[in-house]
């Protein structure tokens, strides 16, 4: 599989191509973090995050690749690791407490939403994820999930989203998050 093919397959949301890419550059990318005072776990984490950034940009059609895939991912890894090192530095100073208290309500809301997503069926989850994360077109979603046409995909997405909204709002009102 050459660069072009990998990229094309990733743009189409082919997860096998993503796994292939992950394996291919695992050593190169994790080494960047490990040799810059990171642990292997941190290295893996940064590499996975970087690859997902790349994946999201590619699947959403927002990426015109002007360099090699490895160059692109490597630079994301570098940026992410730099950010992480900065974050660690800041945390080791005194900002830790304020950051934690500010995040409590957001974390609570995130938890509620995740719980609601878990209550959806597999197809619903996939439709919404492809729509909001991969930012795929309705045609692509229909192709990926084997729907007859884009209208089916649209209807499915609409119904799944309504269901999720309903679940989230019910939970929000229980937790007094709604005005």
């Amino acid at each position, binding site marked *: *599989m*050459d660069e072009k*093919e990998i990229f094309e397959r990733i743009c189409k949301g082919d*997860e*096998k*191509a*993503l*796994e*292939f890419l*992950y*394996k*291919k*550059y*695992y*050593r*190169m990318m*994790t*080494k*960047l973090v*490990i*040799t*810059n005072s990171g*642990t*292997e*776990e941190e290295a*893996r984490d940064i590499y*996975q*995050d970087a*690859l*997902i950034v790349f*994946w999201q940009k590619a699947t*959403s059609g927002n990426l015109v690749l002007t*360099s*090699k895939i*490895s*160059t692109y991912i*490597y*630079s994301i890894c*570098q940026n992410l690791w730099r950010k992480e090192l900065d974050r660690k530095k800041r945390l080791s100073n005194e900002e830790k407490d304020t950051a934690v208290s500010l995040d409590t309500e957001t974390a609570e*809301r*995130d938890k509620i*939403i*995740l719980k*609601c*997503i878990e209550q959806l069926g597999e197809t619903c*989850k996939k439709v*919404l*994820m492809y*729509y*909001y*994360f*991969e*930012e795929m077109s309705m045609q692509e979603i229909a192709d990926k999930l084997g729907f007859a046409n884009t209208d089916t995909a649209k209807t499915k997405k609409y119904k799944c*989203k309504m269901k*999720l*909204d309903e679940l*989230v*709002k019910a939970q*929000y009102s229980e937790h007094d998050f709604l*005005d």
Partner: protein
Amino acid sequence: MALENNIELLDNYVANRMSATEKAAFEQQLQADPQLQRELEIQQQIREGIRQARITELKTMLGNVPVSAVPGTQLTGLAKLAIGTFAAAIIGAVAYFSFKPDGKTETQQPVITEVTPENPVVSQDETKVEEQADVVVESTTPDRKTKEPAKPNKNKKSEPKKDDAIASRPAIDAFDPAEETQPVSKTGDEMTAPVVENSAQAASKNDILTAVDNTNKKYKFHYVLKENKLTLYGDFESSLYEIIEVFNNEKRTAFLFFKNNYYLMNEDNDKIKPLTPINDPVLLKKLREYRAQKN
């Protein structure tokens, strides 16, 4: 009512599916409508939740992809050739340590057989990748070529082999992190070419595929080694570990080096076994000598 009419617009806005003009118009509308603003906030949270859920899903998927152990800590084929001469002595020490002068004749064997089992492993690995990705792994082809020239060296004499291995040692260190960080910190395509090649080379040098499982509460410092697949259970992220393979009469003995201790790993069955540090001073000395020489 106004909100219901705007639901679709709101969704397009949140899902990043609006043109610049539509976006500007909608933002203007937003400013004048507090109810719409509140709904937008909720919709953005939901969208963020969906995105986070997907990121977690993708990360889990990637986390399950088998990858080789810590970069740079595994031994290369050439390094194994170098330790081939120690093989009989080390294996002998495990069973019945006695460092005889005629041990040299034994040491010839592992060197001859050492590379042979390696090639099937490489091809197995390739097949696996092909199955998974439906593709041909281009990067492994030149790599196999680099391995093949090593075969003619597998003559029956251990002495020249040792020399070969030692003379070729710089190649072991070819995968130097500095070589990677430098080129890519610059920009431009040509810079990455050597990086990619290096990584491909290094990737195929491993026989034992290692995975770490630190989620199992029952097994805190255990391992299972079966058919070139090693799973380490416990907190192996805190320090670098190293897999040392020693070949003797086509039989491989694998050792783990972790936090200044050496562990013998049996591959006789697929039971999860605890890791016990080697205490035999003589064997430890041999292993240390080997590592010192390697580094």
